């Protein structure tokens, strides 16, 4: 695995100057790649079967279907609980991001790239800015323009149209007709990790990338391990690595041992929980996680051991989604608050069993009728709670009713 790693500096955590990056291989053959033309880059990326490294896992080649775009937008704005990969990339591999932007720009004939970065990422922005400064000094970008746009941030910016609205200076709210145009021109939006992966694919060739990973998930991926593991870290692994192996080799194992393992969030909070029964032989790739009705997401793995109050965790996540909902459409605006209030109650068991049915119904309607995907993201952790931990909830309701003497033991 070691020789196949793309983001070596994330492990090494060395300096991020242009010179240091060049010794790691960045900017090495950029001019050569550029001289091969846009068609070659597009073909290479299509052959590599690269998939978007966040939420849906869309094929990049499919995103490039129109083969040209005026703007490239890089989304470093959409972080959700549990994922730290974006932050690490910006901190330790800024040059890969910039180089990737240049290469995508060349592939699609774009003239400008906007890197939308969260306002909270102060340090990361400074690193990115100084990297950009160095690159400009060496005139590596040519005519290509890269701007860093500091957004107010928000998980909602994971929704592409909302990100574009934010970039255009309005509130980050999704567009109703799914129009993906920026300032009236065509735009292509990518996550940070996808962009940073592209230079290495072009340098080492698509066959190398396609030889890694599984059938539908090629290459390597960054995973961030957090929660109840001995050594939380961000690490790059081949797609299809088993969860247990990842936790044990890189995270130093679950606190209290695998036997004490309760559940995991496999890729950021919007992917829901997976209980131990499923995790025992779970592989981390797009198709395996789809099979268990989850999603690889951003690769932000949160491990929870049996000391976790899973209902309170869900309630806390529900609160997060309540605060992050943009408020444009009714089901999401009202629904997220409603879910939070219900869970607050249920986490101490205050309620009836009928409340669980109501909650289930509510979540289903929320994800079905909301304007953008956010309704579904917000529902996901609660849906998985009901799917895997319903006995726990019922137990709490029973205990509460016993304690308040409404039910005899």
């Amino acid at each position, binding site marked *: 695995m070691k020789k196949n790693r793309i983001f070596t500096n994330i492990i090494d955590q060395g300096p991020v100057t242009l010179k240091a990056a060049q010794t790691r291989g960045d900017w090495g053959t950029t001019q050569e790649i550029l001289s091969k033309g846009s068609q070659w880059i597009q073909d290479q990326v299509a052959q590599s079967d690269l998939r978007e490294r966040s939420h849906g896992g869309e094929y990049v080649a499919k995103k490039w279907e129109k083969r040209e775009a005026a703007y490239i937008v890089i989304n470093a704005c959409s972080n959700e609980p549990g994922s730290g990969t974006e932050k690490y990339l910006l901190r330790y591999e800024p040059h890969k991001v910039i180089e990737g932007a240049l290469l995508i720009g060349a592939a699609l004939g774009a003239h400008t790239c906007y890197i939308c970065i969260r306002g909270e990422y102060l340090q990361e922005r400074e690193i990115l800015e100084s990297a950009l400064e160095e690159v400009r000094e060496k005139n590596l970008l040519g005519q290509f323009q890269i701007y860093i746009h500091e957004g107010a941030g928000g998980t909602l910016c994971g929704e592409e149209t909302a990100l574009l609205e934010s970039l255009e200076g309005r509130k980050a709210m999704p567009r109703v007709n799914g129009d993906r145009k920026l300032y009236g021109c065509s735009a292509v939006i990518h996550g940070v990790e996808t962009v940073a992966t592209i230079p290495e694919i072009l340098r080492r060739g698509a066959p190398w990338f396609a030889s890694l990973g599984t059938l539908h998930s090629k290459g390597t991926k960054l995973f961030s391990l957090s929660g109840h593991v001995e050594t939380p870290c961000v690490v790059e692994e081949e797609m299809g690595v088993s969860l247990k192996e990842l936790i044990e080799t890189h995270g130093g194992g679950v606190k209290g041992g695998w036997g004490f393992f309760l559940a995991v969030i496999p890729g950021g909070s919007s992917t829901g929980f997976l209980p131990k029964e499923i995790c025992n032989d779970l592989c981390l790739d797009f198709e395996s996680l789809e099979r268990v009705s989850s999603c690889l997401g951003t690769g932000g793995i949160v491990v929870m051991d049996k000391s976790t109050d899973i209902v309170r965790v869900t309630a806390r996540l529900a609160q997060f989604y309540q605060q992050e*909902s943009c*408020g444009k*459409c009714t089901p999401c605006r009202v*629904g997220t608050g409603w879910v939070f*209030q219900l869970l607050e109650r249920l986490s101490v068991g205050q309620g009836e069993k009928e409340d669980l049915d109501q909650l289930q119904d509510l979540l289903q309607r929320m994800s079905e009728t909301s304007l953008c995907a956010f309704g579904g993201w917000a529902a996901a952790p609660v849906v998985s709670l009901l799917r895997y931990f319903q006995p726990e909830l019922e137990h709490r309701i029973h205990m509460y009713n016993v304690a308040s003497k409404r039910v005899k033991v």
Partner: protein
Amino acid sequence: MTEKTQIQISINDMPVECTVGKTILEVCQDQGIEVPTLCYDKSLSISGGCRMCLVEVKGWEKLQTSCGIPVEEGMEIYTQTARVSEARKSSLDFLLMDHPLECPLCDKSGECPLQDQSFDYGEGRGIPAEAKRVMETQEFGPLIKASMNRCIHCNLCVRFADEVAGTAEIGALGRGDETEIRALKGVVTSELSGNVIDLCPAGALLSKPFKGRGKAWEMESFETVDVMDAVGSPIRVQVREGEIMRILPREGEWISDKTRFAHDGLSYQRLDQPYIRVEGKLQPASWADAFKIIVKKMTSLKPSEMAFLIGDLVDMETAYVLRQLLDKMKVPHRDCREAGQYLPVSARGDYLFNTTMEGIQKADACLIVGSNPRLEAPVLNAHIRKRFLGGNFPVALVGQKIDLTYTYDHLGTNALVLKEILNGNHPFAETLKGAKNPMIIVGNGALTSLEGEAIYKTCRAIAAQFNMIRKDWNGFNVIHTAAGCVGALDVGFVPLKEGHDTAGILRGAKVGTLKLLYLVGVDNIPFNGLEDTFVVYQGHHGDAGAHEAHVILPGVAYTEKDASYVNMEGRLQEAHKIVQGPGEAKEDWKIIRGLSEVVGHKLPYNTREEILAELPISEASSMSKGVEFQEITRGFMKESDENFYRTNVICRSSPTMAQCSVELVSTAQKATVRGYEEVVS
């Protein structure tokens, strides 16, 4: 390649042909298929937030927001499936979760889209829910009463303020379920603010003057036309037990706040019987006595010692009948241009807004001379703003610097700059030359100034120079502020050759050459020093005119008579009698008909139909040819500091408008100056 403009889709298995670019909702509405919606308005941008308009499209996984998705060839749309009705129920559940159940208390009830849709599509039961959201009370100014607990966050009011009113005073603060709709300065100063009351689908924004006065089902609706400005907005007047409760726009129109709220002025300061001045004090009198005194005075005077003026709210019938009488009496001094503006009357197009409101959308450059359309005709200004937002529409203004809600080049306050434009020495001349459909708007600020005639003629010359007057396009426009002015000009109520115009009449009355001044609804002129002149005032309010009068004859207002008005576009419109006038007040034309009998020139009109048959109603808008050019020498134009809420006699009697002028005008003026500076910088 020819683009296909018609495509085939199917709605509920029914084949439908429709135009490319329309949304699913529009096509459904065209077909008469009901799709409920709470956050959609055809003149505003699309939000898609209410989730009531969801429909199922075959082959698409999620339910689709019909208000925002354009139709595509071969789409199969279903609006009545179980899944759709389930989604509607669910959206209503979410909406009603935070909506207080106070329909019996709410003024909106009975005409509330949320209420109607809950009834039609809702579950029919309440769901046990968590604590309801409670909002702080918000202040929206003297016209709008806000109950934010009822708000369903459709954002219609925000979009209206942003897009149509152009003042961006209402905003959605915060996000998620903490979103709050607020008037940012605690007050909405726009002249069109009342429209948010109609837009609000949930009773969160209500009319403050109307608060608690009635319910929709108690009132009867009548259609008529507004006279507060010369736009002649079509309105619906709602009446309960012979009292006007409120005024609403007709379907799909915006109306100004004056149109909507000034009607309470109709119940104050009204003249309900004739009065005669005896020893300096007005005494009630009978019609016969009042007429006797007038006739006595009239018969003792030569025709050239009398003068007749018509005011801003006078209908066409009155002007026509009075003109017939004056022609018989051979009185030369008469005028209907109350503000004293210069307007030629030889051809109809000379004094109309020829481009028309819809026509503005086709224009591609605009020069405004001496006018503030925002205050003089807010609805017209909204049309110009709409065109401006369409892009590629340079606007320039000669005159007072004001916030028009869109950006413009300010070419100075002096009209001499028009000469430069005419000669092509000004950069804006290039813009006009390059434009296909340029337009020029001339307002009272220019026409009432000392050099009104010269400015008018220069504007005509500019119109000719830049090819604004063609067969397919007429870009020469005059903005009127008086609802009755165009109608009176149409019947030719202007001085005879040897007669005086408004300014001349006032001068004559002051120096004493005119012994009798007959005012029909003239209230906007300050009268003073008329000691020797005998003044007859005929009208509906005891205002400036009545104060000076020796005899007062009570007329009726626009909602109390059947009458014809012509708006500034030259469109004939009818006002209808909706309520009974007060006391002995009569239609103005009937008073003049009566007077004609006693002065011995009996007019042959006994019914309104007889007048209508004779009215010179025309749709022509031809322009007079060969207007001789007149040089502007000094170019000073009138600056107006007119208060939008106090422009006519009805507004001045209205407590609501008084409230507005106290609370809003100072704020608006401050905002205007600030807004303009922001725009410029």
